[in-house]
């Protein structure tokens, strides 16, 4: 009898212990975060802002308890880990960036990566690491078409990579179509280019030239401005005497603001289309004020620089940014893509019912089937390239929007489907 009592007690204690262990493990599972890795170059303003955008999305999601993972029957919060690849700083070799990514994956064991290395060559090299670790990656900065080429060379190997932003081909085509819209509106057909004397800026100028000449435009002048040029008057005089109606300026040097300031003070009778990231965010007005009036800009993707009425998510994104009192963006390019990247993962995890690291091969299929609204329109991926699809209709795909600065506001002017006003000529052109 006594022995039976003992057995009963032991069974009760055992079951109670099991119960406690079960409860504890449940609680632990609920708290265990989904780890997002962000390896990029934090020296670059667009990475700094991109990180804030990722944190904004994470805060929003964690504010609702996290992401529901069906297979685990728990809501798991998101946690961000970062590694500075320094690949956006002068002189940092690609292998140093790769080591930073490798170390982060090995040490932090993230479930997925977002944003990813800044410089295209570092991103190209990172593809092999992504493949080696089967690390699902929603990449949002590097714009080179080379990434697609590599992916298409071996889709099975590189299937974990997705580009959730524009690429340079989309951006170049939109820039050309934006300029071409001026031909339809004003009958313009001659343009003059000022490019910073660096390889990338010359490449952008050449690409636009090719596209615009294909559309019937004539380039009436090309000037390369050495880095550090602080007087653009002789170049602008040439632009005026060339008879150009559109002036395309591309660069990123600290003295480039001198160019658009002189364009205004010298009253150069051209539209100014500025490919200069700094002036593509709302913050730029605070720095340069009315010098920016009538300047046309093209931040990418659509809605990242300023809200667009036809893109409701863009207004939401900018409102949340302002509500959180986040600092203004020095360079808004791809910042909204970083925000969207987190939601792309959330959406795929909820549909899949498991986190990417559990079965990356299977998870990739869920990203490929993404179909949701983001800041720049409808987010879908081209299965053949793993590139987010961009075209001219935000209901069908994502878009890029051109703006014109007017009295402190960036007014969407192209494409027509989202334009909120027509392009206006500067007063001295009328």
């Amino acid at each position, binding site marked *: 009898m006594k022995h039976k009592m003992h057995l009963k007690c032991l069974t009760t204690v055992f079951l109670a212990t099991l119960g406690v262990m079960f409860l504890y493990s449940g609680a632990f599972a609920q708290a265990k975060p989904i780890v997002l890795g962000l390896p990029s170059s934090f020296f670059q303003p667009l990475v700094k802002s991109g990180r804030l955008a990722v944190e904004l999305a994470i805060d929003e999601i964690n504010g609702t308890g996290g992401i529901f993972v069906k297979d685990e029957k728990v809501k798991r919060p998101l946690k961000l880990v970062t590694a500075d690849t320094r690949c956006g700083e002068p002189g940092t070799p690609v292998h140093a960036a790769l080591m930073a990514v490798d170390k982060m994956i090995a040490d932090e064991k993230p479930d997925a990566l977002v944003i990813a290395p800044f410089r295209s060559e570092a991103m190209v090299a990172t593809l092999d690491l992504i493949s080696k670790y089967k690390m699902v990656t929603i990449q949002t900065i590097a714009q080179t078409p080379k990434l697609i080429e590599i992916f298409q060379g071996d889709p099975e190997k590189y299937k974990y990579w997705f580009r959730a932003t524009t690429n340079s081909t989309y951006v170049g085509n939109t820039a050309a179509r934006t300029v071409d819209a001026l031909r339809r509106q004003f009958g313009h057909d001659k343009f003059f280019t000022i490019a910073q004397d660096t390889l990338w800026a010359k490449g952008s100028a050449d690409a636009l030239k090719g596209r615009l000449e294909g559309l019937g435009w004539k380039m009436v002048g090309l000037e390369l401005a050495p880095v550090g040029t*602080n007087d653009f008057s002789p170049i602008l005089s040439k632009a005026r005497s060339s008879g150009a109606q559109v002036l395309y300026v591309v660069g990123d040097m600290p003295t480039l603001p001198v160019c658009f300031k002189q364009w205004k003070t010298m009253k150069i009778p051209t539209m100014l289309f500025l490919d200069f990231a700094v002036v593509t965010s709302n913050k730029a007005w605070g720095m340069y004020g009315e010098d920016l009036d009538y300047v046309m800009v093209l931040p990418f993707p659509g809605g990242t620089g300023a809200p667009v009425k036809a893109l409701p998510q863009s207004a939401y994104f900018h409102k949340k940014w302002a509500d959180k009192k986040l600092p203004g963006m020095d360079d808004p390019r791809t910042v909204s893509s970083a925000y969207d990247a987190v939601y792309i993962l959330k959406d795929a995890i909820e549909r899949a019912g498991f986190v990417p690291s559990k079965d990356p091969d299977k998870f990739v299929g869920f990203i490929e089937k993404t179909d949701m609204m983001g800041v720049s329109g409808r987010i879908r991926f081209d299965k053949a390239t793993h590139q987010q699809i961009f075209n001219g209709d935000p209901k069908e795909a994502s878009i890029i929007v051109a703006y014109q600065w007017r009295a402190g506001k960036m007014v969407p002017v192209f494409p027509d489907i989202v334009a909120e006003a027509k392009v206006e000529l500067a007063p001295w052109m009328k």
Partner: protein
Amino acid sequence: MGGFLWGFMEIVIYGITNSVTLALMAIGFSLTFGISGVPNFAHGAFYLLGGILTWIFINQLGIPYLFSAILSVIIVGLLGFGLYWGLMLRLRGMVVNEVIATLATAIVIIEVLRYLGFSGFTYVLPEFIKGSVNIGKAWLDYQRIFLVGIGVALIIILYFFTHRTRVGLSFRAIAQNERTAISLGIDSDRTAALSLAFGSALAVVAGLAILPLGSIDTEVGYDILIYALAVGIVGGLESVPGIVLASFILGFCQILVATFFKAQWLTVVTLGAIVLILAVKPSGIFGKYKELEERV
């Protein structure tokens, strides 16, 4: 004809503004070198630091523009003075060491500012007055008019300072013959320290006139040094009239090359002038440092 007049006026007007800009960049460097013989390679870093300090005073501390500017000039001037007493005093006369020490100081200042995030395009100094004016068919912004005014005023003030004030006369005495000046009771080290302080302060004045045209970025710290050296080498490092003349030669050459050839040759003009002058007259147009060797 109208187009020709337009183009001609723009060449003249922007040639003058470009020349004065170059003169402003170089004048502080030249003053220091002419008096103390110290090649202050931290000149560009002081130019940058002055701009950033002014930005901080205006935007972070809410101090009015004018006071911010004066404060920056004083602080950087004191830094220049400190640089001499703290470092250059021990190296005086060892030219290579002087170059290394001032260059290292420049790198430390610029890279610390970069580390602190003072790069990019956030840091913009306001123009004194916005807008532009039409001069003989050419449009010119008020900031450049101010810039020319500041440049001309500085040259005049410097002339009277070095010819009419006690400190200025001691500057000239040391520059002409240090040993004789010492024998007459002039404190050579104090004068040299003051010259570094004045040169550094002049770098800030130049920055305050030029930086509102664009934005402040750490890279300008290096760019300005190159321009200052180019003007100094062509005109004669220790000669203020030489600096002015060289600024006008280089300034107009740059505008003419960009107008009649291609803007990408602008850098070649500057560097080509250095090579040419070093081959023909190493002391520069008005320089006297190697005059004896040149005669021989």
